[in-house]
């Protein structure tokens, strides 16, 4: 073939030949030569040496040849900027050509040549083309503005192209509108705060009109842009939804999914009792199901999105279980995704069908798929209690198949079932024990050992079983070693007489022969516990365990909300926010769903640890509209808020200090008189409040409450830690999410704190027992005690943490909210309160107002009580309720407050007095 020949040209001498051909007089020969050049370019050969010769061919009336030369130019102009200038004249001339196709071609190509000098010449032609009479030229010019902006953003702004582009949104031609929207959206993305895409009801109306008329791709651009708009009210929201719904019947899946995105987002604003809301929900299901009959790649994207949609609004697809049944010849990636969704949709109503299917899948060929199917059966058992029995018997059947990986996977999930339903299915333990020898994966071995240890009293030969593992102790993975150690200690506590030797053996193996510090530490702890106080040991080791939560793999609600805003895009495929995989400023803005976030939170499944961001919304709702509260607030969160409220007065003043500690003393009485060591944490509380009750001007100060990334993956070889602090039932907890963003599995996690102001220290080891596979996250709650070594930190609530895993040790520091330190016994005697109050110099008092708090004094007092801020006395003076309150920090420092509530006035006045005699004395 001739063209095969084109592709197989070899380099030597060829350049010469081509040069000659390019300069030939014959048009045909020239064209063939340019073709050869392009072919070489495609396969990656450097033909830049031919630049002048190729550019010479540009002056031609042969459109095909021209396009080829342009293609060459786009590739090589950057490497030969000086030569590229030679082409400018032709471009400028072409932009004046009577043929619109040529005008468009010139402006399209020019934008792709990223050479500064050329860019300057581009401006004038571009300006003309943006106003060209032909829509084809205008639509090309619109995209060219985005190209130019990518090269030189300043230039685009200076030349006023952005305004011209905005005008094009009102163009009469739908395709021009669509391209202008696409270009503007892209430019706006790199200017997050510019109000570039000034979306208002008028422009929205124009877009919706163009939506009916433009190409499928244009419809996608417009829908994606619409999704960024926030309607003013539910009526506008409904009217947009009504005009978008017809798109759900488009043949192009991308149009459908983008329409789904708009609807999912705007639906948040519709009242639930509205008829239309129900109609809309019903309309969403069929198109989503239809996506599953598209090509497999599209099915995959659709399934990843459906996974999100099902988590956000399970009601949409709850009756569509059957369509997610796996087909025998689905590609593996489709199968795995379908399985995930099946589990999410599993309910009491359909569990029988689901189980029958899962059982079928467990006999398939693909190992990953089979494993996931087995695991899914276990998850069904945990999710649907009524089905647990059937699930367990299915798992037993599978164990009987003796297929190695099936057995191992089954044992791992049965362990979870035991944790959900303790003491219910021990009858199966005998069967499990039969398979002990075939287990070769650490996770399965660890699970089996855990089961044996947990039910040691019911397994006659538990000691023998565990002893058999002990033989190869040093060859086991850490996971198994730790589990074995614990299991044997459990066994010893249950049957002390027969197993003394065994426990000594394992303790010495763990403490003397192991070089793993975790194992050693755990060994020592057990050893000491057992030798000093066996009763205490029993209480610790055999303590009742909390039941495991219903669903463990749900996406964290704030992330889910963000991903819903990104339906159809890569973010929704990866289930990661764009900032996780996009470089630079693009796509870094976090999108949120509109409407009351509180409503969203109350829907969120309770099993997921709510992020602080959401709690904020929740609290806001609770405080402002008490009658509509749906449930009691989580104790931790209200504690935080109320703490903030009362500390506010002191906090505000101390803020000055915070800003500039050196100058603080020069400012005058109140701040200077505040005990310095106290001011800083108080301001921590203050920030909480700013966002909660009042939402004042300091918007970026949410740091103490929201879940934040403490340790970015980049700094810790792929380990990312984010988290927050809460106080639950008197226990301070550090709640963390550990995410493995590296390629390898992480194990052996441990944590340690540096000395800090309030003596915070971990009260137990970091409970991350399973290895963390790549791209997996795990949530861990670390209880904290306040009896650790104390050292004053700057700022006072700073905490330095070290986290270790099998890869390395990493350090980070974070700040905790002061309100978390309020103790339960912070109620002062009346007399003492009065005396203390009087004792405090007036200078130490500070005042602050809380605005727009519509609680009466009793309700406020109750709420505060929930967060360990106790009302000592209440007085009514001139229509004002005065609440006197006290709180105590964990290190024994008292804080007193006076809260003035005036009926009918939503603003509270808070006076805070912090008297810390000792500290005061030291300071004065």
């Amino acid at each position, binding site marked *: 073939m001739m063209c095969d020949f084109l*592709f197989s040209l070899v380099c030597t001498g060829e350049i010469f030949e081509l040069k000659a051909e390019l300069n030939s007089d014959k048009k045909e020969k020239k064209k063939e030569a340019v073709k050869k050049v*392009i*072919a070489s370019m495609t*396969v*990656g050969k450097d033909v830049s040496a031919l630049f002048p010769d190729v550019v010479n061919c540009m002056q031609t009336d042969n*459109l*095909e040849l*021209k*396009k080829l030369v*342009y*293609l060459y130019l786009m590739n090589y102009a950057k490497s030969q900027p000086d030569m590229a200038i030679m082409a400018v004249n032709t471009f400028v001339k072409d932009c004046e050509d*009577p*043929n*619109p*196709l040529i005008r*468009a071609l010139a402006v399209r190509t020019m*934008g792709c040549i990223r050479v500064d000098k050329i860019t300057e010449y581009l401006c004038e032609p571009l300006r003309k083309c943006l106003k060209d009479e*032909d*829509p*084809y030229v205008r639509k*090309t010019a619109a*995209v060219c503005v985005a190209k130019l902006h*990518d090269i030189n953003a300043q230039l685009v702004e200076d030349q006023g192209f952005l305004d011209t582009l905005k005008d094009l949104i009102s163009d009469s031609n739908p*395709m021009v509108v669509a*391209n202008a929207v696409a270009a503007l959206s892209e430019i706006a993305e790199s200017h997050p705060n510019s109000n570039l895409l000034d979306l208002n009801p008028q422009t929205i109306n124009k877009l919706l009109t163009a939506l009916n008329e433009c*190409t*499928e*791709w244009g419809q*996608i651009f417009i829908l*994606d842009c619409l999704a960024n708009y926030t309607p003013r009210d539910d009526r506008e929201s409904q009217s947009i939804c009504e005009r978008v719904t*017809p798109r759900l019947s*488009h*043949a192009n899946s*991308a149009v*459908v999914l*983008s329409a789904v995105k708009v609807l999912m987002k705007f639906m948040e604003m519709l009242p639930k009792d509205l008829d239309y809301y129900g109609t809309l929900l019903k309309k969403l299901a*069929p*198109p989503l*199901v*239809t996506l599953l*009959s598209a090509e497999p790649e599209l099915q*995959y*994207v*659709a399934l990843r999105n459906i996974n999100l949609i099902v988590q956000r609004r399970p009601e949409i697809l709850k009756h569509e279980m*059957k369509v997610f*049944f796996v087909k*025998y*010849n689905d590609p593996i990636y489709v199968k795995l995704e379908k399985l995930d969704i099946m589990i999410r949709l599993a309910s009491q109503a359909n569990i029988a069908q689901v189980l029958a299917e899962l059982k079928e899948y467990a*006999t*398939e060929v693909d190992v*990953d798929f089979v494993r996931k199917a087995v695991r899914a059966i276990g998850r069904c058992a945990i999710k649907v209690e009524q089905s647990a029995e059937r699930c367990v018997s299915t798992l037993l059947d599978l164990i009987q*198949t*003796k297929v190695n990986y099936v057995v191992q996977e089954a044992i791992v999930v049965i362990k979870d079932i035991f944790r959900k339903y303790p003491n219910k299915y021990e009858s199966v333990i005998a069967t499990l024990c039969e398979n002990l020898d075939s287990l070769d994966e650490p996770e399965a071995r660890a699970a089996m050992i855990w089961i044996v240890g947990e039910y040691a009293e019911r397994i006659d030969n538990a000691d023998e079983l565990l002893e058999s593992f002990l033989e190869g102790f040093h060859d086991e993975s850490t996971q198994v070693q730790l589990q074995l150690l614990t299991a044997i200690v459990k066994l010893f506590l249950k049957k002390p007489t027969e197993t003394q030797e065994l426990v000594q053996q394992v303790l010495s193996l763990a403490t003397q022969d192991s070089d793993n510090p975790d194992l050693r530490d755990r060994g020592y702890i057990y050893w000491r516990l057992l030798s000093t106080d066996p009763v205490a040991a029993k209480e610790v080791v055999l303590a009742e365990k909390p039941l495991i939560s219903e669903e463990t793999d749900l996406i964290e609600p704030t992330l889910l909300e963000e991903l819903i805003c990104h339906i*159809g*895009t890569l973010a*929704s495929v990866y289930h990661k926010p764009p900032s996780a*995989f*996009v*470089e630079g400023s*693009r796509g870094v803005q976090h999108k949120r769903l509109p409407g009351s976030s509180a409503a969203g939170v109350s829907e969120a499944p309770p099993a997921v640890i709510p992020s602080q961001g959401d709690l904020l919304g929740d609290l806001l709702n609770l405080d402002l509209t008490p009658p509509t509260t749906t449930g009691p607030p989580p104790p931790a969160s209200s504690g935080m808020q109320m703490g903030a409220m009362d500390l506010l007065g002191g906090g505000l003043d101390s803020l000055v200090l915070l800003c500039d500690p050196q100058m603080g003393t020069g400012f005058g009485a109140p701040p200077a008189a505040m005990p310095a060591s106290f001011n800083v944490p108080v301001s921590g509380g203050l920030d909480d409040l700013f966002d909660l009750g009042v939402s004042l001007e300091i918007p970026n100060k949410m740091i103490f409450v929201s879940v934040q990334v403490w340790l970015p993956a980049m700094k810790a070889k792929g380990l990312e830690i984010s988290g927050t602090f809460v106080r639950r039932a008197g226990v301070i907890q550090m709640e963390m999410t550990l995410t493995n963003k590296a390629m390898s599995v992480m194990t052996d996690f441990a944590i340690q704190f540096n000395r800090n102001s309030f003596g915070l220290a971990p009260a137990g080891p970091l409970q991350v027992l399973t290895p963390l596979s790549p791209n997996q996250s795990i949530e861990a709650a670390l209880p904290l005690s306040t009896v650790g070594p104390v050292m004053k930190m700057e700022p006072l609530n700073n905490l330095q943490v070290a986290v270790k895993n099998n890869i390395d040790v990493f350090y980070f520091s974070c700040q905790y909210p002061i309100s978390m330190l309020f103790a339960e016994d912070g109620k002062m005697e009346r007399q003492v309160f009065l005396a203390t109050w009087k004792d405090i110099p007036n200078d130490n008092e500070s005042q602050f107002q809380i605005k727009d708090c519509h609680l009466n004094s009793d309700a406020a007092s109750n709420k505060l009580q929930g967060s360990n801020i106790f009302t000592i006395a209440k007085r009514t003076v001139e229509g004002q309720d005065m609440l006197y309150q006290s709180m105590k920090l964990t290190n024994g420092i008292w804080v007193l407050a006076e809260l003035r509530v005036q009926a009918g006035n939503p603003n509270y006045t808070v006076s805070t007095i912090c008297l810390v005699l000792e500290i005061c004395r030291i300071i004065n």
Partner: protein
Amino acid sequence: MIGGLFIYNHKGEVLISRVYRDDIGRNAVDAFRVNVIHARQQVRSPVSNIARTSFFHVKRSNIWLAAVTKQNVNATMVFEFLYKMCDVMAAYFGKISEENVKNNFVLIYELLDEILDFGYPQNSETGALKTFITQQGIKSQHHSKEEQSQITSQVTGQIGWRREGIKYRRNELFLDVLESVNLLMSPQGQVLSAHVSGRVVMKSYLSGMPECKFGMNDKIVIDKQGKTGSTEDGAKSGKQSIAIDDCTFHQCVRLSKFDSERSISFIPPDGDYELMRYRTTKDIILPFRVIPLVREVGRTKLEVKVVIKSNFKSSLLAQKIEVRIPTPLNTSGVQLICMKGKAKYKASENAIVWKVKRMAGMKESQISAEIELLPTNDKKKWARPPISMNFEVPFAPSGLKVRYLKVFEPKLNYSDHDVIKWVRYIGRSGIYETRC
């Protein structure tokens, strides 16, 4: 948006490489080859992220098409675009093979320049593209001014899929209702899942810019008419109407009109196109019923009996019937007896394939097989894959009927009656499986 588009042959050699964005370097071409095409393990996702660059790929025979980006693009759009790209190429030069791609590389570059601008898909309707991307570059110079503006207004206009001034001596329409019926049945004959996915495919050879209206026995429409129209008519047709779960349309169909009135009106593209796709799950006529009977006789023998029953009007004939009965991996020999057609054991496929050319409705046929097994010590039980079936029947298993297809062309002097219309129904098996 899409940062670049590459086409590779099965060896991973790049045939076409077009970069649209500055953030995509030449090394992206190699990254995809190394990590996906040459990957040791089978690639488990059509989207892969390599060094913070995302690759989307589809495969056509042994040609790889890959779109590359570093941004958070609309993933659905990228795949839709890749399919569209395949369609466009196929419309220009037929099958997408290495040879065809190499022979048409100039054309492909020209197309890529036109339908993807800075990574944004532009009009990609072949009807429109063929008017100005012709591979005869010189000819395009001779367009008159009118022709040029006609081209540009078509490419950018509302009816981007059809050009003006089409003329036929004979106005003709071919309409095919193609359905594939999918079934998963339990060994006891219980329907686990069944659905029909159908397509209405048209070939239109009509002059001018005709306005068409398509009607079928959609339950919603019939019920509505039943209420307003004469009761007799409603009762008669109501019986035959079908419930459509969902449908999607070619971009020529006015979706807002369908949404409000449920009427399907459009100006058709010229030539072949797919007017709509639909899906039904209720009252499906399952053309065949498969009744399997598997008996394990000891450890070295299996007895399999499969009965198929045709379940449609006896005047109709099903064709190309094929039943595929999987056999265990350790099969050593098979003896077959069938009443009709031909059956063969295919060792390479681990299956007995039974073919019957034709079978009328309301008939029954059966095959019995004795499978000898080699004794193995493999603990793993045979998974018993489902028995699958292929066939073709001359009716629509969903029950869909075309009620009318009206053509109006106000400017030219031909009427609906002058158009010759052909309608055909074909029902094929999709994934038609019975577990055994």
